[in-house]
């Protein structure tokens, strides 16, 4: 695995000057993934913050061939490009040793919700591509609306906190497990803030002869209501509270890639984010307890799947 020093010498593939917010987790995900991925690369993006803020015509932040076509179809678009690559290679139009790696980025909206079908299709068909979901747990580009990745109790503009509702009422969908059920060679969860874990996973994913999927929890200062300089800390805390466990499923085998020395209580993470502010008001104690219980239950199950001892 490359050291931080080595990575810092790599040529940046996402150049500066783009319009993502200060402290945006998505650009950190993109840079770390692109720095690590063996070149050459062809990248596709779903509609969303990352796409919109990096390609304002006539500018582009992407140093490699890059394409966006719509919101729900990044995986399908990439599968067309990858199929063209296979076809042209087979016919000798492209050199057999072209060795292009195909990477797709999508937000949680473009991945969990509207893009789930095209993602599932592309994974099932077995295109050799890495799909990276930068999961900021809501539709940020359109102004913080709920997605199926939004956690229970989270405030968004379409799951607002009101006189009778405490933010989002439903639990988040477990997309990582849905991807595992596709029996693809590599699936993982990573987080902004643990570069070594993420870059190791990117390298593993791209070493596979088939599709791979990495779900990266990506703090959004605006949507989460957190300080921009806290992005990395919040990411790490998400792993340490087991709100977002770091693990991988390689060829069907589960492995925990980060076991918190001491599992921290969820309220530590929630307190750093305005989207959960209301949970600390009187009357919401039960909901807070329920959120902790949900996390504990899922964590226990994951430990079992990873062959780890229960705590």
């Amino acid at each position, binding site marked *: 695995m490359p050291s931080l020093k080595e990575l810092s010498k790599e040529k940046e593939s996402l150049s500066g000057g783009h319009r993502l917010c200060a402290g945006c987790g998505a650009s950190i995900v993109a840079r770390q993934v692109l720095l690590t991925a063996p070149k*050459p690369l*062809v990248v*596709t993006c779903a509609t969303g913050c990352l*796409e*919109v803020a990096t*390609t*304002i*015509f*006539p500018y*582009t932040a*992407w*140093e*490699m*061939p*890059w*394409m*966006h*076509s*719509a919101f*729900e*179809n990044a995986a*399908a*678009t*990439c*599968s*067309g*490009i*990858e*199929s*063209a*690559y*296979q*076809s*042209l290679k*087979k*016919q000798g139009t*492209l050199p057999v040793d*072209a060795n*292009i790696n195909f990477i797709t980025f999508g937000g949680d909206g473009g991945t969990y919700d509207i893009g789930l*079908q*095209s993602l*599932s*299709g592309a994974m*099932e*068909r077995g295109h050799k591509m890495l799909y990276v979901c930068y999961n900021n747990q809501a539709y940020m580009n359109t102004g913080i609306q709920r997605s199926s990745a939004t956690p229970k109790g989270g405030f968004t503009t379409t799951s607002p906190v009101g006189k009778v509702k405490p933010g989002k009422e439903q639990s988040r969908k477990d997309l990582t497990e849905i991807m595992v059920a596709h029996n693809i060679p590599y699936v993982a969860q990573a987080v902004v803030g643990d570069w070594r874990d993420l870059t190791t996973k990117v390298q593993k994913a791209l070493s596979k002869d088939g599709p791979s999927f990495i779900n990266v929890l990506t703090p959004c200062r605006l949507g989460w209501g957190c300080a921009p300089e806290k992005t990395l800390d919040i990411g790490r805390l998400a792993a340490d509270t087991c709100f977002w466990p770091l693990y991988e499923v390689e060829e069907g085998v589960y492995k925990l890639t980060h076991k918190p020395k001491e599992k921290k209580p969820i309220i530590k993470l929630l307190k750093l984010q305005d989207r959960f502010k209301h949970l600390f008001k009187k009357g919401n104690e039960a909901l807070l307890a329920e959120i902790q219980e949900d996390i504990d239950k899922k964590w226990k199950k994951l430990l079992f799947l990873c062959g780890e001892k229960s705590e």
Partner: protein
Amino acid sequence: MRKKLAITGNEAVAYAMKQINPDVVAAYPITPATEIVQIFSQYVADGEVNTEFVAVESEHSAMSATIGASAAGSRAMTATSSQGLALMFEMLYIASALRLPIVMPEVNRSLSAPINIHADHSDTMGARDCGWLQIYCENSQEAYDSLIQAVRIAEESLLPIMVTIDGFIISHAMEAVDTFDNKEVQNFIGKYKPAHPLLDIKHPITIGAIDFNDYYFEHKRSQIEAMNNVEPVILKINEEFKKSFGRGYGLFEEYMMQDAETAIVVIGSTAGTAKVAVDNLRKQGKKVGLLRLRVFRPFPAEKLSKALSHLKAVAVLDRSTGMNAYAGPVCTEVASSLYTHSDLPASQQAGKKPKILNYIYGLGGRDIFVEDIQKVYVDLENVAKGEKTEKLINYIGVRE
């Protein structure tokens, strides 16, 4: 070797696709276009084509993957019908605005609801303003020939193109089709040389950037210009096709139009039925003609209005409805072209334009018969004589 084959419309389309031998086909089944996908998969399974076949999970993904493949720098095709085309709607605009020369056979079928699998033109007429070229074919032969031409037209104009046949009436009907040798087809279409392929790693480009109000209009304006410029390209390629293969098609076909006093304008397979009606009436000494519109996008407004302006009355037959409380899509375009273009100087135009009637027919595959069409000519004759019509729009073969 050139071969005369007894094949259905779908078979003719699939056979043309095989001879085009696209680099990528991404497609999804839907009646009545399913056979195209099935037959083509068999060509792939038998190693008869070099194509990478992507059996996508929806038509939205079919068009998305075709867009990706085309942008990558490959010759890419898909095929669909009806609901499938409707599901592609978002991506149709993206394909044309990205200026991708995608070729798509489309088998015309009505749109739900009620669900119905038979022919009408609601599907492609609903997509008439999405920046795609549209060619409506009368029969399987024309579909086969047009698909081969379409590859060149799309690649020269950098616009996507759909070539349509009527569901079941053509797609499932057996006809004799003259086919060419694989080599001849390959020679005619040539090798695809994309100008800016995404897979050119040495020259990285960004495709699909966001335009704000400072650039969007210019990009759309240039797309409009591409559409404005494509008519001569279609005609030029048709001339080359004629030279190579001995037959060809124009923007529209004029049947007994020279001395005609009244005429019908129609698209698709109904033209065959209408020609029989014209023949019957000509035998009775009636001066009737037929104009079969083939290229609907770009709409050949100037040439079409010139071809119609000498008539006393015209009936436009629409196999779809605009739901605009006015007239069908073909009629509205024919009428507006007569208003804006004419052979006559403006000062002489008053009262000289042909009167127009619109007939909606055949929705959901309802049959239309020679007698129905002859009846339209009777109406036209009366109108030409000066008889007042009650309605612009009439319906053929519907229980009111």
